[in-house]
């Protein structure tokens, strides 16, 4: 960089200490706006941690690029200002102070957020020992002993933009590390287990005594036909899910695959619980149409036949005859016991 470079840019770079390689050309024109908003952000922080606006500009600029300019470089100044004004000032100052080696800031971070990290770790581990281990790993990871290509120590703290709360970010980081560790562990044993599981699955599919009973008069051909129909229905369901819009598909997966409640889904997307329920209903309608079309196209079934197969498939709850009889006997026993009790009480 020479003195012929834009003086405004040089001055800005000198004051802000931003490496030019870190800033895209799209962000350059917003620097004054970013600086001004950074001053405002620092002023609304309860504890500025001794930082100056210059200390914040780099991180804020990265956030602007990540959330605004990356997807659409045509963002305007009001949008930039609105984005910066929505940042969590105290959390951002705390994290930047930690990055700069402020021991008091580290102490505050661990004191205030250790319980959050442990709660997220407990969600995975479900025992005290593993929870403490995982929490310790998280803090070590956050403190960061890694160095980037420039030889600078770069911990995960540098990835916090301040757009979300620090507690939420720590939960996400804990989950991320736990899942990655779990998958690493899982991959080590998965090869051997997969073979065992595959053998078990094959044996199970060939055994008929635990097969779900729909009718006592089923022939083998009928059973085979129904199993094939069920497989086709599952395949059609998967395809129908993929054909949904991104938001509908995400909502459906959060609801059915991850077991989230309607209220939790609604809070995530920022609408009412009833709206979430309606979205699921509409998605179900769309899925039904897609599945019926898929089955009709593949098997040549008529509408009634498609409906019958869907209904039969939905009714199969996987209950064996042995369990049915056990439930029936239990109910009879309860009924007799209740009748005897009433009879005795009466006399």
């Amino acid at each position, binding site marked *: 960089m020479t003195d012929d470079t834009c003086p405004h840019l040089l001055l800005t770079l000198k004051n802000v200490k931003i490496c030019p390689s870190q800033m895209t050309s799209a962000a350059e024109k917003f620097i004054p706006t970013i600086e001004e908003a950074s001053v405002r952000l620092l002023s609304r922080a309860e504890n500025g941690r001794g930082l100056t606006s210059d200390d914040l500009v780099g991180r804020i600029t990265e956030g602007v690029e*990540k*959330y*605004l300019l*990356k*997807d*659409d470089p045509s*963002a305007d100044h009001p*949008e930039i200002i609105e*984005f910066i004004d*929505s940042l969590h000032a105290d959390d951002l100052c705390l994290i930047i102070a930690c990055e700069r080696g402020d021991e008091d800031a580290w102490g505050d971070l661990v004191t205030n957020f250790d319980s959050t990290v442990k*709660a*997220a770790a407990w*969600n995975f581990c479900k025992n005290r020992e593993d929870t403490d281990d995982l929490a310790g790993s998280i803090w070590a990871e956050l403190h960061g002993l890694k160095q980037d290509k420039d030889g600078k120590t770069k911990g*995960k703290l540098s*990835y916090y*933009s301040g*757009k*979300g*709360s620090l507690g*939420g*970010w720590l*939960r*996400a980081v804990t*989950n*991320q590390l736990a*899942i990655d560790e779990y*998958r690493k562990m899982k991959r080590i044993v998965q090869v051997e287990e997969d073979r065992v599981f595959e053998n078990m699955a094959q044996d199970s599919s060939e055994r008929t005594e635990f097969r779900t009973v729909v009718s006592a008069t089923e022939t083998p051909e009928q059973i085979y036909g129904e199993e094939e129909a069920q497989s086709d*229905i*599952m395949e059609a*369901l*998967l395809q129908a899910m993929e054909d949904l819009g*991104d*938001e509908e*598909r*995400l909502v459906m997966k*959060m609801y*059915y*695959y*991850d*077991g*989230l*409640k*309607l209220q*939790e*889904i609604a*809070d*995530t*997307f*920022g609408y009412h*619980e*009833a709206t979430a*329920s309606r979205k699921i*209903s509409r998605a*179900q309608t769309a*899925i*039904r149409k897609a*599945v019926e079309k898929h089955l009709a196209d593949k098997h040549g079934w008529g509408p009634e036949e498609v409906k019958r197969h*869907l209904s039969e*498939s*939905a009714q199969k709850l996987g209950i064996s005859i042995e369990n049915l009889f056990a439930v029936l006997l239990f109910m009879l026993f309860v009924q007799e016991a209740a009748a005897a009790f009433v009879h005795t009480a009466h006399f």
Partner: protein
Amino acid sequence: MIGEHDKEIDGLLRRLAKTESSAVRVPAGGHIDADEISVFAENALPERAKARVTAHLADCTRCRTILSNVVALRSAETADEAEAPAGAAISLEIPWYRKLFAVRNVATALGVLVVMFAGVFAIFLIRNLGGPGAESVAQLENANVADSESGERDSNLAKAPAAEVPAPELAANDAAEPAAESAPDLAASPASEKDIALGRSTDGRLEKNADEEFRTRRRADVATGTGAGRAVADSVVASPGVAREAPATVPAPPPPPARAAQKAAPTGLEMAEAERAEDKDDAKPKVALAANVPEKKEVTLSRKIGGKTFNQRNNVWYDSSYSGQSTINVRRRSAAYRALDAGLRDITEKLAGTVVVVWKEKAYRID
């Protein structure tokens, strides 16, 4: 709300979830970072980035799982925080009068006191209500008393006791009269019935009510009694002249024995006849009749007044020292009655109805 969902598709999707929830799908382009996931979970993602992040989350099992876990944890923490301030607010809003009952012992003690007072009040009420009620029931059972009663009344003499009463006592009796007349009127209250039954009434009106009650009982006795009772009434009706000629003092029949208790309701004609007989009996001395009265069961009440013990039989109070001797008949509130000793009048005024009392070795029958 879940009720509006397609149940068949809902069931099929739940079955699908059992296999797909563990499937690992990683879209091209790598994962999103924890910062984007946390911002998305808090609905703070700018619209520009939302589409990209949403699309990735919809197809990436790993990132979607992280997102769901973060959402669930955030929801749990929010629920815990919501409960704590509510508790604090409630404790701050406890009014002063509730604080009094915050101490368990105080509350218990107050509750015990309330129960005790209620119990005492109930006992008091029952005692006041149960007395006259119980005695009136006994009297109703005794309603078909025999005719030794009527025999006794027939043996009562005409009034001429005034000559036998000493003059100084007459003056004392006059002084005592207003006191008796000023006795509170209890006729209207239930307690008054008890007072009447126990002979506490001193008011003329009460006496009249007691008298009417007695007459009613008598009518019932006569109407439903045995042939002797009816014969008494008939004889009284049929032979008024005999009553007039009765001497002032006649040997009184012995106190009637206990009578059996059972009766049929009297008819109107019989009651009317008995009433006429009663009226006539009041005006004239009674004729002694043979004590040929069948025994019936009766309920005996006892009272101690003025050092004397009185037993009530057939609605007549008998002095325990009375042994069947002849009596001097005196009507209440008559001149002869006022001429009686004050002590005697005090005793008789505490008993309602007919009283047979022995005073200074003389037997008086106060009606």
